[in-house]
Structures are given as structure tokens and as C-alpha cells.
């Protein structure tokens, strides 16, 4: 697999801990995780359920904060940012792709893709052009005005990907992006993500699927909140 990696670190995690309180018990979701991700890299995070994959992804994406340790994304130290600055950080740096697509059911595909563009304050004309362009890029030019309920799982995930790349973030975080799709559609989605990666965007994929992981530049394996393997494919 040809990598677009440039050698610059866009993500630097240093001794990241995440401890949740469940009743009176402390649950250590992440235990001293340290790693770096280079610009343009496509990376898989693997591990059994409950090992901390999604928690790590959420911390990288600024949806969650580490209990201890530092996480720098695009030279921004996330652990010190407040809620509104984290929102701005996500808006400008991160595109999320979720397992269950997380599209707004009342909005059309075109409107869903426009959401982050509106949040960026883009004009109506410009955002319509961009959203259309990105939906065309993911092969949905004939589904612009369909609502999520009128689209197949694969099509919904394509809309979610178009939404994630619409603001051209430097990093795409995909949490089990093929987990709810059949294998053929899953492959198509992965092909799309790889194509996006070739444009220079860094992609981190959380997956259970070895086949998918094997197509990435590097695999980080987690178990019980700690990295047990960090290797190139």
C-alpha cells in the first residue's frame, strides 16, 4: 500500500490515561497510551470490545478528554481546551465517520453534508456547491435530495464520509465505518477512504476486521486500555 505519509507528526499521544467512574468503581479505559501518527498516514486501531479503541478515538477527536497525559493534534494541546474551543477544534481539524452513520434523519443528503459547512460560516451558494461536489465524489450525485431513510446503509455511510471530508479536515476518524455494512459495501467504503487518504488526509480507523486493518499503513493493537502492538502492515 502506497502511503502519503510525510513524516510530520499530526497526532502525539503521551502517556494518555482515561479513567471512568462507574458507581464507586474506577474503570481504566486507557492506561498510559503513547503513540504518534504522521501526516497522511492511514492507521488502524484494533482490539477486543471494551479495550479502549473508541475512547482513544474520541480523545483524538476532542469529544473526550484524557484523565491524565497529553494529546497534541495539529500542534494543539487538547487536554487544556474548554468545550467551546474543542468544538472549534473539531470543526476545523476533524471529520468523524461513525459505524451507524449518524446522519440527521430529517435532512436530505445534501443538507447533512452542509452541516459542518454552515458551522464554518460558509455562504449558501458556496456550501451548496461544495456539498454537491463531495456527494458526487462519493458517487451519490443522484441521491442529493434523499433523506437517510431513503438510502441504503452503504449510501448513508457515503453521505457520512462526504460530510466528514466536506470541510477538508486534516484528520478523519472512522469508528467501525464498515461495521454495519455487508462485505462488498464495506470494501467500497474502504476504497473510498483510501482514495481520500491519497489526497493527503490522515485517517484513523477503529476496526475489528483484520482484512481492513491489513490495508492500512500501520496497526495499533490495544488490550485492556494499553498498546500491545504498534506495527506497520
Amino acid at each position: 500500500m502506497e502511503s502519503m505519509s510525510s513524516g510530520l507528526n499530526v497526532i502525539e499521544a503521551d502517556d494518555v490515561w482515561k479513567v471512568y467512574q462507574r458507581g464507586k468503581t474506577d474503570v481504566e479505559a486507557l492506561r498510559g497510551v503513547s503513540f504518534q501518527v504522521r501526516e497522511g498516514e492511514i492507521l488502524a486501531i484494533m482490539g477486543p470490545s471494551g479495550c479502549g479503541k473508541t475512547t482513544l478515538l474520541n480523545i483524538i477527536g476532542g469529544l473526550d478528554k484524557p484523565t491524565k497525559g497529553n494529546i497534541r493534534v495539529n500542534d494543539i494541546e487538547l487536554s487544556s481546551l474548554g468545550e467551546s474551543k474543542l468544538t472549534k477544534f473539531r470543526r476545523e481539524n476533524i471529520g468523524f465517520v461513525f459505524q451507524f452513520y449518524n446522519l440527521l434523519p430529517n435532512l436530505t443528503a445534501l443538507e447533512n453534508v452542509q452541516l459542518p459547512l454552515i458551522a464554518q460560516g460558509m455562504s449558501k451558494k458556496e456550501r451548496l456547491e461544495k456539498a454537491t461536489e463531495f456527494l458526487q465524489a462519493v458517487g451519490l450525485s443522484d441521491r442529493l435530495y434523499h433523506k437517510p431513510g431513503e438510502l441504503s446503509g452503504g449510501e448513508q455511510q457515503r453521505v457520512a464520509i462526504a460530510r466528514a471530508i466536506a470541510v477538508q479536515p486534516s484528520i478523519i476518524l472512522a469508528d467501525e465505518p464498515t461495521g454495519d455494512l455487508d462485505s462488498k459495501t464495506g470494501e467500497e467504503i474502504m476504497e473510498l477512504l483510501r482514495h481520500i487518504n491519497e489526497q493527503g488526509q490522515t485517517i484513523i480507523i477503529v476496526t475489528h476486521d483484520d482484512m481492513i486493518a491489513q490495508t492500512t499503513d500501520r496497526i495499533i493493537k490495544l488490550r485492556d486500555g494499553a498498546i500491545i502492538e504498534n506495527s506497520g502492515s
Partner: protein
Amino acid sequence: MKFGFLFISIRDLKSKKLRSIITVVGIAGIITSYLVMMAAANTMNDLVEETFSAYDYRLFVMKRGKEDPMVSQMPEWYVKKIERVVNPEYIDGVSGFLWWMVDNSTSDDDSEYLTMRGLQVDSYKQVIEKYEIVAGEELNNAQKDRNYCMIGINVAEKYEKSVGDAIILQEHAFTIKGIFTTSTMTDSEIWLTIRDAQNLVGKLNKVSLIVVKITDHDYVDEVRKQIEENIRGVVVFEADEYMEANAEALDSFRGVILAISMIALITAVLGMMNTMTMTLRERRHDIAVMKSVGVSNNDLFVIYSVEALLIGFFGGIVGVILGFFMLNVFGVSNIEMAGYLISIDLTYQLAFESVIISTILGLIGGFYPITKISRKSALDLLQKFG
């Protein structure tokens, strides 16, 4: 604030049509009751003010301790005594009236009361408020006009009576001689000769109010002094003073209406709060997704506040339309109060105020649930959704 998000508010409203409609109708019902109650209070207030303003240059003489024409009773000869004791230069006329509530019903089942005024036919025109005869003639002969009456235009319209018809009061028939209008509450009265009035209610040789028309406001104190010093047990008011003395009762009436209106409006706020809480609870997932793609708390606040505002606004519009129909089409506008027929006016100003109030209620009702949910983190919302 990004206006581009506003289409989400409209979409959300449309996606829950039934709930939106039910909430709008609920608020509309409350706004209708508010509107009708406030219109009634305002109309009452305006009517009382207009009625009393028609009594400029008049002094009211009533029994001390019973300063209400419906309660006060004095011997009729007090009228002559006042004419004697007051300097004639100060006054243009003196006349006695007997006010009473009389039964207009034709059977026990349809009991209806009207305000009757007995007139001293030879002197009432000197002191009575301005009136215009719209049909027939005035009462002008104390003897010949026995068993005749004049009715206000409200009475004529309500009972569909015209000159020459009979109207039944306390089981006695009186022939309508004339129909008058004053454009005040007086339009709901029936005027008889004083003798007929006294006989009808069993108050022989009694009057309940004596009106003294003065030539100049500067003489008020002097005339008052001359009357109160020479006739024991009476009290003299100017129209303004009388209105002020009765303002407390009017204020109490308005206070009760306001209190009921406030309860209705608070109910609307709570209903709105409940609707928005339910709506936002269902949309936790959408809110989490919007947050994760970088939509700020302020933008979320605006999106859902606009939704609450629209519900309030449409509730107000529908409420005003319902109010208009209730008052004008279903005839609720004519109410009977203390023997007076009052025609409630729905003013443009009150309609406009009601829509504004309803819109503000929507915002207030939505404020707490919207603030609460928009401050939650995207992750919290996603996890709760999951």
C-alpha cells in the same frame, strides 16, 4: 449566529407535525382565554371611564355609608331640599334617580336582570349625561308616560325590541317610547318614570342618587358644604372622586382577571417546557451529531429557540384568530355583568400584544431545556442515545 441552520428548526417542526400542532393548539387555547379576559377587562375599564367622564360638572349625592346607586336610598324630598339649600347661582339643575336591578325574565328558568333607572321626568334632562334618541321619543310627562319606558340601544339589540313593543319588567309590561344611545354603559339601561320605578321595586318616595349639575368646578366645595351641612347622612362626590372610590373594586376585578391570565400563561410556559424537553430528549442524537461536526452551543441554542419561538408565534396567531371567532362569530362578545350588557372589543393592540406574549412564552418555555441540553457534551449525548 449562523442563519443557515434555521432550516433545521423548520424541518424539526415538520417532522413532528402532530406534536407541533397539538402544542400550537394548546398555546392557542390559552392565548384565546387570555385575549378574551384581557379584552373584557379593558372594555370594562374603558366603559367605566367613558361613563364617568360623561358626568363632568355633576355631583352625586348618596346615602353616607351606602355609596352605591344600587344600594343607597334617600327620601325623594331631599331633591327639593337641595334646590332650596344650595345657592341657585352655583347649580344648573337637580334631579333624583332610582337605580335598581329588575327581572326581565318571562319564566323562572330564564332569569335575566337589567339595570333600571327611574327618572324625575320634569328635571332629569338638566342633569343627565348626553344621550341621543335613535328612535321614538323621550319620556317627558310624569303622568302620561306612566307604563312607558326608554331603552338603551344595547337592550333594543339584545332583545330585538323597537318603539311600540312591550318589555316585561318584574312581570309588568312597559311600552317602549324611545330608544337612546350614550355610547357608554348606560346603553344597557331601561329608563322609567320615577313613580313607575318606585312602584316596580317597592321603594315608594325613594331615590338612590341625586345628581346636581354645577355651573363651575370652582363651586364644588361650596355646593358640597351646603348640601352636607343641611342634609344629614348624605355624602357628595364628584364623578372623578366617585370613580376613584370605586377604582378599588375595578382594580380587584382586573386583578382577578390578571391573576387568572397569569395562571393560564404559566400553564402555557410549563406546557411549552414539557414539549421542548420531550422534543430535545428525542433529538439528543441529532444534537450530539451536530456537536461532533462542530456546531457550537450558541448555534444549537438558536436552532431550538427558533423552534420554540415559532411554536409560540403560531400559537399566538391561532389564539388571536380563535379569540376573534369566539367574540365576533360565536357572539361571546356580548356579556352581561352587574345588569349591564357589555360588548367586548378586541383591539388590534391587544391582538398584537397577545402574539408577542405568546412568542415570548415559547422562548421562555424553551429556554431551560434548550440551555440544559446544549451544554451537554457530544459524547454524553451520544452515549445516552446509545
